[in-house]
């Protein structure tokens, strides 16, 4: 069993360093492939490993890459020179990973990010982990020190394959120049088949510099990784009977509905049988929130009516969700009277957190159509639908705007929603602002809500806006607006990517809901730590409007209600990146709230109910 990279390299006669050991000293010592080695327009002809890598990416349909240069990845960048792939140089590799992730979410194609070895690769890690938790298709290419130096603690060496093993769907150490293109093509395809997820290929510099004439073949996912889209028919029939017989049926659409391009099938399914719909947070946009059947999204900060419905349903039709703890609250009180129909492409999600009475393993859209064919009569749910409507009236999503209190952040979200079209893409960081952006914006289309769910990565918003903008432009939709709601804390983590937006002239609007707190932590401290604001109160923040101007973006500061609409209008009309620093009420809390591990049906409507 060859469990070390070293063993494999011994077996690998093709992995000879093509350039001197001085390469390990960084870019200055690099010996990039010469001009004559570049592709001459014929994509299948290659002369180096790096050219094979780029040929594989082009053949797989990659159009855009986000990355940061560096010593060990230089040969790949050199081969990108003159490629059809558009490359955006990001300020930081984390930004490259988030931008690629968001690009993938918006386009439905795998995002692509590049970084050099060592710190370049480790800076990608947060973004890769984020994509892994949210099942986003993404390929990361990392440079690596030449194979003969691997394991010697060479300059900028990190065991990238080891570091990223638990946060990728699969990763590869490409030790063979003749096969490197095929490996990259396979990794690209693997990221999107079945349950999507990030893949990574680690590219030693000698391999990418090495001579090879082996052009990549047609890219294919590894055998056994592209599952059967259809669920077993007997299981479908059994689930269909359960749905027909339900008194209180409820659909729960997760992110898998969007990733499986099943939003249309999901809408038809719910409407055909009049089944009320709630979504998970990643499932936002799978079902229009302005539809009468929509109860918006459920979970910790979900609507009261969604959480009442999910608590009282007797048949939960869950599609493409992994029953995350932020959705379920305490497992003992989650949909406690429901038979669960669970549709998922990943068998390992079946009965992982919530027991599935009717497991349906398959593609979301395909299985919904199978169910549609198998159901012969709609469940008798008039009374249940009325109850759901009553809950909407009993627990409306409202907020107060007293004259003697500062600007409310929810008002800002609603103002943007009113000023923009339905196809507007919203990105966020993580925290209170993210919750308000999801609660007070009415989402109607898939791939318009771009956020960090599972990992909860503060700082996701700005690089995601860059990726989303580039994606919309690449799709030929330059008129779509991209709005990033960010918190002051989140913005400080990745705002350097604003430099990319200015340099590349990207039309994005960043709305910082600035409360000078790590607001969600402050809210929890007030609720659970007797109000001790340890390390959550910034006390001082830079002036983000002026900072934006220094970057070359439009900067606006807003303090009062009257200034909101004009500022929103000006920023949206501005052709380029704009930042509005909204100084909002620092004491505002996100409600409703199900305390961690609590019962969804016992959501708090005020802080003193926690």
């Amino acid at each position, binding site marked *: 069993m060859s469990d070390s990279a070293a063993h494999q390299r011994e077996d690998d006669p093709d992995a000879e360093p093509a350039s001197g050991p001085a390469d390990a000293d960084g870019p200055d010592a690099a010996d990039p492939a010469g001009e004559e080695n570049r592709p001459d327009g014929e994509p299948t002809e290659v002369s180096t490993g790096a050219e094979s890598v780029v040929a594989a990416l082009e053949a797989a349909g990659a159009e855009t890459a986000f990355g940061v240069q560096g010593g060990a990845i230089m040969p790949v960048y050199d081969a990108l020179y003159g490629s059809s792939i558009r490359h955006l140089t990001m300020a930081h590799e984390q930004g490259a990973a988030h931008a690629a992730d968001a690009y993938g979410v918006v386009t439905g194609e795998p995002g692509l990010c590049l970084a050099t070895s060592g710190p370049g690769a480790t800076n990608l890690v947060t973004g890769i982990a984020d994509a892994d938790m949210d099942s986003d298709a993404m390929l990361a290419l990392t440079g690596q020190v030449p194979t003969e130096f691997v394991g010697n603690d060479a300059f900028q060496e990190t065991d990238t394959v080891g570091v990223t093993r638990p946060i990728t769907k699969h990763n590869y150490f490409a030790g063979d120049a003749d096969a490197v293109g095929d490996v990259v093509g396979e990794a690209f395809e693997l990221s999107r088949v079945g349950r999507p997820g990030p893949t990574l290929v680690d590219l030693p510099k000698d391999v990418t510099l090495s001579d090879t004439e082996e052009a990549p073949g047609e890219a294919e996912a590894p055998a*056994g990784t592209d599952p059967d889209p259809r669920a077993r028919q007997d299981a479908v029939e059994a689930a269909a009977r359960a749905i027909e017989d339900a008194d209180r049926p409820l659909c729960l659409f997760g992110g898998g509905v969007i990733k499986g391009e099943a939003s249309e099938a999901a809408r038809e399914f719910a409407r055909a049988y009049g089944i009320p719909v709630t979504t998970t947070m990643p499932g936002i946009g799978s079902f229009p929130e302005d539809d009468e059947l929509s109860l918006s999204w459920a979970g910790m900060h979900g609507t009261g009516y969604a959480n009442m419905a999910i608590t009282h349903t007797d048949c939960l039709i869950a599609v493409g969700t992994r029953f995350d703890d932020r959705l379920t609250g305490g497992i003992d009180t989650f949909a406690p009277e429901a038979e669960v129909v669970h549709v998922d492409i990943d068998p*390992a999600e079946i009965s992982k957190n919530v027991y599935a009475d009717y497991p349906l393993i398959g593609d979301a859209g395909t299985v919904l159509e199978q169910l549609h064919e198998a159901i012969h009569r709609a469940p008798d749910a008039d009374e249940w639908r009325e109850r759901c409507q009553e809950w909407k009236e009993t627990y409306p999503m409202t*907020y107060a705007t007293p004259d003697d209190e500062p600007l409310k952040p929810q008002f800002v979200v609603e103002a943007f929603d009113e000023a923009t079209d339905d196809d507007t893409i919203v990105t966020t960081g993580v925290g209170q602002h993210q919750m308000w952006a999801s609660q007070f914006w009415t989402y109607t289309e898939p791939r318009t809500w771009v956020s960090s769910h599972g990992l909860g990565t503060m700082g996701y918003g700005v690089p995601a806006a860059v990726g989303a903008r580039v994606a919309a432009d690449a799709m030929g939709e330059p008129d779509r607006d991209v709005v990033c709601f960010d918190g002051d804390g989140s913005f400080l983590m990745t705002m350097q990517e604003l430099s990319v937006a200015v340099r590349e002239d990207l039309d994005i609007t960043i709305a910082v809901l600035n409360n000078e707190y790590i607001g969600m932590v402050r809210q929890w401290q007030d609720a659970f730590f007797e109000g001790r604001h340890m390390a959550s109160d910034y006390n001082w923040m830079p002036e983000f409007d002026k900072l934006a101007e220094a970057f070359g973006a439009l900067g606006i500061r807003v303090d009062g209600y009257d200034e909101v609409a004009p500022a929103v209008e000006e920023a949206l009309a501005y052709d380029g990146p704009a930042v509005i620093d909204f100084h909002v009420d620092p004491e505002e809390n996100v409600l409703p709230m199900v305390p961690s591990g609590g019962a969804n049906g016992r959501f708090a409507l005020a802080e003193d109910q926690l």
Partner: protein
Amino acid sequence: MSGEDAAGMPGPAPDERPQPEGRRNLEGHRIDPVVEAEHDSRRAVISALVEDEPGVLARVSGLVSRRQFNIESLTVGPTTVEGHSRITMVVEETDPGIDQIEKQMAKLKPVISVGEVSGSAVTSELVLLKVHGEEPDKVHAIAEMYDGEALDAGPETITVQLTGDESKIDDAIDAFDQFGIIEIARTGQTALARGNIPTAPGEKPGTAGEPTTPNTQ
């Protein structure tokens, strides 16, 4: 909402709302109306046929540790098929836990097939045991009793090799304890199914890359 006295959002407080009476157990099973017993953990032997590529052992052991599966032993070795290895794991888990291990392992790209080895499988372990050498005759007698073999004998220590299933090995170790065990090394259990039954379900030795067919529905 702001300040201590603000009302928050409208609607009945948690205690004023109807709550369902049903519950789920920690494994997500509905307790009501069908009472599902809590699962006890049990010992299971999991066998996986894997592609012998760099990092495959790290992928499997990393999966086991990350998902907090209780593992007793893990052995690995080549098969007669070029490029294939067999990994045998002994785990102590509930039925849903064992199900999760199999499903999560099946998702690893180098895993060709994986499954629990049936209870009647042939299992065996090899142990090297070093004891004090003051009573060589007695040591040799006990070694013989357990079909063991002395591999090294000197004036101070005797090293014995034993093979067998878990209960035999445990009994032997107890018997050698009287001499004072200086060092011990165990390989962990390895296993094969009896007769014509494939050791991992759906396993087709000799068909490189043949995918697992999960039998989960």
